[in-house]
């Protein structure tokens, strides 16, 4: 598979830069307790509604599994029902095909401006660049997406795309783009900045010829796209222009409205800690004769881009993902780096699994290893994706394909060779203990250790003494 625009191979150097960026670190430090705190609070309140987290996750995982087991069947049912309601259904194999289909639809309808509600698929396809190259202006209307579009950046989080940006950076961007002098701002000014963006975006909503949105779910039984949003821009994008294009992954299909309702018990709670998001839109077909609003043409673009290859594989569980962001919101690595270090569209634990699978295992060697194995992600995942186990599986594939560095391979083999020879192992560890103790020089710690330069770059290596346990234990037994 091709790497596309993935920068995941530069993970190490990007990480080095991100941990040393004080503005980013401050933004992450501020966001972390908000994300985890809000989720924890809403989960703790589940019993008030007669609900229980573990049971709900079983139900949600079960719904996703049922859809994935017969994915082709549910997609066909969706397609039939969507067409019956007047929508067009197109299929895209990869990002290039998404761009081609969208531009083709746009050109056929003389579209010059497109308003967009958040869509990670359009990031997979780098659709904005393609639209601009075709002379069509794309305008991101989710506030966070709008900010990063102005900054010329990619989202760093799947539900909070501008979480890495500080208030000062946003103020500077708005002042420059909206043509006004820059001001001193505090968090009390956030509503004013939001109103400012809203004023600008309103003009775009009214003048756009086409709206592009993603879909949180596709509901097969009714041919419906379900959209879960908070800002209201999603409604504008999907109802004001005459033409609405929905771009979403083929794995997003669920059989029934009832299934969707169950998933909604956990999606907003896992994502933002809300019992329900401000807007939940169910978009079915085109405007009928007695309706006064809504598009006269709806086009679904259902995308593979690597997904079909996971069906029936050891990684099918990853397709359960409902894009809530809880895994990254509870990831110590994500909150040390932000999302950009991961190098492709999806950051955090879900990205560490998806990026290698979608862009090539050999193109994202660090991602499955850049994890402490803490399992916080899998303990919060609303659809029980065993993210650490999937990352582990990718580590095994790297090993099998000889993609691990020779130093690591040799070191482990030497270690295992020694560890299966207890007498030799005892002798060498006795020597090692003396060596470490000599390096510590009576201080109880080593400050620079050539065998673990990374370790001692940031911390001391505590040393307890010059004799191993087994040496001391043998001596005690002799006494």
């Amino acid at each position, binding site marked *: 598979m091709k790497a596309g625009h993935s920068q995941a191979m530069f993970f190490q150097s990007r*990480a080095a830069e991100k941990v040393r960026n004080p503005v980013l670190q401050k933004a992450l430090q501020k966001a972390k307790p908000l994300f985890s705190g809000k989720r924890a609070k809403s989960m703790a309140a589940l019993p008030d509604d007669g609900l229980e987290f573990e049971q709900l996750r079983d139900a949600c995982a079960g719904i996703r599994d049922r859809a994935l087991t017969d994915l082709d069947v549910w997609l066909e049912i969706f397609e039939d029902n969507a067409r019956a309601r007047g929508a067009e259904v197109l299929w895209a194999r990869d990002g290039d095909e998404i761009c081609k289909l969208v531009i083709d639809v746009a050109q056929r309808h003389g579209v010059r401006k497109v308003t967009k509600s958040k869509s990670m698929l359009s990031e997979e396809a780098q659709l904005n660049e393609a639209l601009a190259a075709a002379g069509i202006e794309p305008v991101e209307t989710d506030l966070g997406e709008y900010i990063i579009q102005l900054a010329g950046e990619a989202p760093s989080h799947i539900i909070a795309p501008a979480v890495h940006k500080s208030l000062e950076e946003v103020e500077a961007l708005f002042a420059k783009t909206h043509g006004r002098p820059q001001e001193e701002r505090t968090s009390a000014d956030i509503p004013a900045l939001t109103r400012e963006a809203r004023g600008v975006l309103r003009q775009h909503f009214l003048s756009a010829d086409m709206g592009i949105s993603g879909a949180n779910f596709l509901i097969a039984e009714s041919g419906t796209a379900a959209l879960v949003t908070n800002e209201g821009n999603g409604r504008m994008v999907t109802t004001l222009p005459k033409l609405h294009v929905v771009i979403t992954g083929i794995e997003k299909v669920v059989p029934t409205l009832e299934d969707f309702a169950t998933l909604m018990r956990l999606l907003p709670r896992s994502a933002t800690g809300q019992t329900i998001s401000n807007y939940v839109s169910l978009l079915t077909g085109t405007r009928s004769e007695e309706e006064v609003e809504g598009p006269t043409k709806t086009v679904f673009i259902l995308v593979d881009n690597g997904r079909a290859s996971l069906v029936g594989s050891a990684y099918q569980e990853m397709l359960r993902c409902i894009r809530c962001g809880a895994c990254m919101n509870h990831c110590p690595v994500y909150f040390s780096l932000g999302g950009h270090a991961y190098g492709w569209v999806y950051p955090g634990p879900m990205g560490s699994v998806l990026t290698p699978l979608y862009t090539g295992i050999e193109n994202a060697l660090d991602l499955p290893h850049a*994890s402490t194995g803490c399992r916080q992600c899998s303990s919060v995942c609303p659809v029980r994706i065993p993210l650490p186990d999937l990352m582990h599986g990718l580590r095994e594939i790297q090993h*099998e394909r000889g993609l*691990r560095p020779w130093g690591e391979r040799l070191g482990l083999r030497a270690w295992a060779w020694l560890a299966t020879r207890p007498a030799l192992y005892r002798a060498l560890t006795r020597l090692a203990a003396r060596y470490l103790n000599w390096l510590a020089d009576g201080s109880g710690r080593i400050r620079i250790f050539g065998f673990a330069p990374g370790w001692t770059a*940031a911390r001391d290596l*505590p040393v307890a003494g010059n004799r191993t*346990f087994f040496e001391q234990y043998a001596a005690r037994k002799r006494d």
Partner: protein
Amino acid sequence: MRIALYVTCLVDLMRPSVAFAALRLLEATGNDVVVPPAQTCCGQPAWSSGNRPLAATLAQKAIAELEGYDAVVVPSGSCAEQIVKVYPQLFTDDPVWGPRARALAGRTHELTAFLAEVAGLEAVPGEFAGSVTYHDSCKGLRGLGIKAQPRALLARVKGLSLQEMGECEECCGFGGAFAENYADISARIVDRKCDSIAAAGADAVVGGDLGCLLNIEGRLRRRGDEKTRVLHVAEVLAGEVKA
């Protein structure tokens, strides 16, 4: 009951007092305690790197030398998890090693879980004049459900008071080879842990996994904190703490 103590390679080399403390505690349960002499490493580094065959080789060695006991006790959540959770995965379809791995997994316990739940240890020998804050190591906590056991045991240590830190269940950033291979990220994570420890203001931070403790102690000292003691829960419970 004949109990085998699995010392772990890290304790053997870096902090022998943890194993002596574990011995003392296990002997206090009134059982026969043996230290199988040929034990070395459980194979976790090989497993974490993705080298399944090597992990299986080391697992077979450990299974063969540990399966003859009524119980195997490990003073580490992560090594215990390796035996309890990973060994059976290594031999899922193996007709010989599969049953042996599963049998060993069923008899293997993390130290505090064994003391609190299996042996029902009432009185602990340790005394500690001061406050401690407890760091929940990830593999023990989320892998084996170790949470209440160490706290229940620590509550019986004379003189000790528990002062919980914020985000005590948050990873310390150790992660085995992760700390070396992704040193920048690991340092950032352990810094947050050190902030939580500093905010708790206890005399000592206590945990059940030496890897995490070396990481935390190393970073605290590098930050200039010479005061906060970093202790394994076995050392505190057994009174193997030098004044």
